[in-house]
């Protein structure tokens, strides 16, 4: 137990001193293997490194990750951001704090296409942060709204983190995708509510003009193709027609048809650039997963999962208390560590304990992802906050302070989803993914 905790401490220290996350995970795992090798007289424990790397990458369902990233990359380069922003602005209309709320709605749509919080922050933030500032919003609010709403991306399907969780614990990825839909929408609504509450104090700008009907039709028509992609992914998986990996391939095909034949905004020369960018992003995600598997293996040897299980059982046999402790633990981990790595390390440890408390693994997966994505908006490893602050040229400390009300709203929804399982489980049950 102590050795396992020291390794986790070493991991945090390495991350804090600027060592890339995947290397930090690998180093912590390797040190653990070295400790194991001291008490072992036969075999080579370091063989666990290539074994973990190979099994961490070479698993067919994980192929969905590069395919979803590639589909999102193609759609992004095809110029969907402007279309989605205009559509969101039209939907919000003359509501108070119009542009801030349109930002949140646009992020929800964008999340359904890319599944990546960071891609959302870069794309939507690049357009809407300057637009919000121009309309009279403060930099702090522009950053806070953009960074917090971007975190909806990994909950609304398709979700890379859900793929990783599904693979880690052997749960249906399709079920996880559909289970994330209602919580994702709820987070979006909670963020809109937060903007409206803040509007009472700050009196944010409100749009007064109305769009002519013909323009509304044109904007809706423009948004039709980008919004068709999540429908294909979710519809295909729900209908039992395709697996998530195949849905990813179909999403790529759909995006290529959109970019090259319908929108015609892409050139042949764009293809190698998009492929290379996707390859690098995929490698960054997959290296974290595979190195997290090394550490996960070592922690299992040190019997950390068993000891943690005994600790939770000894602390309380009440699932409500267990879920509260898990939420606190994951919220803390999410602020320090990459979401994918956290899932790889924590899901095999916590999910069996959750099962012993009678909690459905699909429900638990949604709770886990919700906890970890909240960390994307908070320092020290709040990538969405860093990107948004970079766009607005705002010090991270100011952005971190401004985002607090939005984080509180997200935690409120997290607690709702935690203690009202129906919110996550209604759709999977309706579609026959869960009993």
């Amino acid at each position, binding site marked *: 137990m102590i050795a396992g905790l020291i390794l986790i401490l070493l991991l945090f220290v*390495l*991350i*804090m*001193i*600027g*060592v*890339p*996350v*995947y*290397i*930090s995970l*690998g*180093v912590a795992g*390797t040190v653990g293997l070295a400790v194991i090798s001291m008490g072992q007289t036969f075999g*080579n424990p*370091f*063989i666990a*490194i*290539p*074994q973990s*790397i*190979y099994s961490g*990458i*070479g*698993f*067919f369902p*994980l*192929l969905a990750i*590069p*395919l979803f990233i*590639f589909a999102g990359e193609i759609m992004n380069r095809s110029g969907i951001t402007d279309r989605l922003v205009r559509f969101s602005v039209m939907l919000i209309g003359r509501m108070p704090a119009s542009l801030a709320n349109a930002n949140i709605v646009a992020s929800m749509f964008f999340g359904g296409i890319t599944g990546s919080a960071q891609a959302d922050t870069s794309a939507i933030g690049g357009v809407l942060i300057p637009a919000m500032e121009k309309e009279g919003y403060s930099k702090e609010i522009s950053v806070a709204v953009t960074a917090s709403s971007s975190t909806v991306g990994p909950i609304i399907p398709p979700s890379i983190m859900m793929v990783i969780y599904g693979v880690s614990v052997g749960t249906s990825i399709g079920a996880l995708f559909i289970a994330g839909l209602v919580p994702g929408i709820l987070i979006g609504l909670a963020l809109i509510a937060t903007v409206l509450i803040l509007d009472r104090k700050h009196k944010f700008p409100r749009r007064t003009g109305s769009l002519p009907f013909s323009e509304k039709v044109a904007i809706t028509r423009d948004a039709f193709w980008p919004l068709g992609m999540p429908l294909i992914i979710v519809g295909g998986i729900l209908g039992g*027609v*395709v697996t998530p*990996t*195949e849905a*990813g*391939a*179909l999403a*790529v*095909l759909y995006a290529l048809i959109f970019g090259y034949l319908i929108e015609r905004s892409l050139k042949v020369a764009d293809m*190698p650039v998009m*492929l*290379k*960018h*996707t*390859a*690098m*992003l*995929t*490698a*960054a995600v*997959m*290296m*974290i997963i595979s190195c997290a598997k090394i550490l996960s293996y070592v922690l299992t040897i040190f019997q950390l999962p068993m000891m943690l299980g005994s600790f939770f059982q000894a602390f309380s046999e009440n699932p409500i208390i267990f879920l509260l402790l898990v939420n606190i633990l994951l919220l803390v981990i999410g602020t320090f560590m*990459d979401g994918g790595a956290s899932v790889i390390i924590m899901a095999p440890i916590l999910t069996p304990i959750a099962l012993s408390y009678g909690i459905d693994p699909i429900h638990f997966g949604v709770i886990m992802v919700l906890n970890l994505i909240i960390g994307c908006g908070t*320092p*020290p*490893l709040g*990538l969405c906050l860093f990107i948004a602050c970079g766009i607005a040229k705002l010090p*991270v400390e100011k952005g971190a302070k401004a985002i607090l009300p939005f984080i509180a709203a997200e935690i409120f929804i997290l607690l709702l989803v935690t203690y009202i399982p129906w919110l996550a489980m209604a759709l999977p049950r309706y579609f026959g993914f869960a009993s």
Partner: protein
Amino acid sequence: MTSKSANGRITPARLADGAIHMFESAVCITSLAAIVVLVLVQVFYRYVLSSGILWLNEVVINLMILLVLVGAALATRHAVHTDLRMLLDNTPPRVAAILRVIGVVATIGFLVTMIWSSTTYAWESRRLTATMTGMPLWLVYGIMPFGGVLILYEFLAKLFGGLSGRSVEPS
């Protein structure tokens, strides 16, 4: 990627660096394109022709290993890997320098261990073949030490890049 040094002169080292960059990019682009095409072919066979290609999944997985290991080297060159610089940026220069040295030693230590252990793994599998394709497993597992060497090269080139005038376009 330029093959010129800081003073604009083309050197053998710069040429080799440019060639490695081109190789990494070509491998990543080709393997990802192949993965997309092969998965789409599999979808076509399954749903249109009602049959599957058994060897295809194995090939796709091996391409994925190649994509990730070589892509990780490329991601090192373009600084795409996730890291946290906030503490280093807000630490006195002397302390930051010590922390950087610790980080460098840890990184090199892990990469060398990875290369050594995966080479051993590939060597121990030299008489085994893949189930469906019959491909020698040392070749498949050999991608790991190969990728590890490329990552280590990119890391060291970046570390000493400032001295040799290596120019890397940010991603």
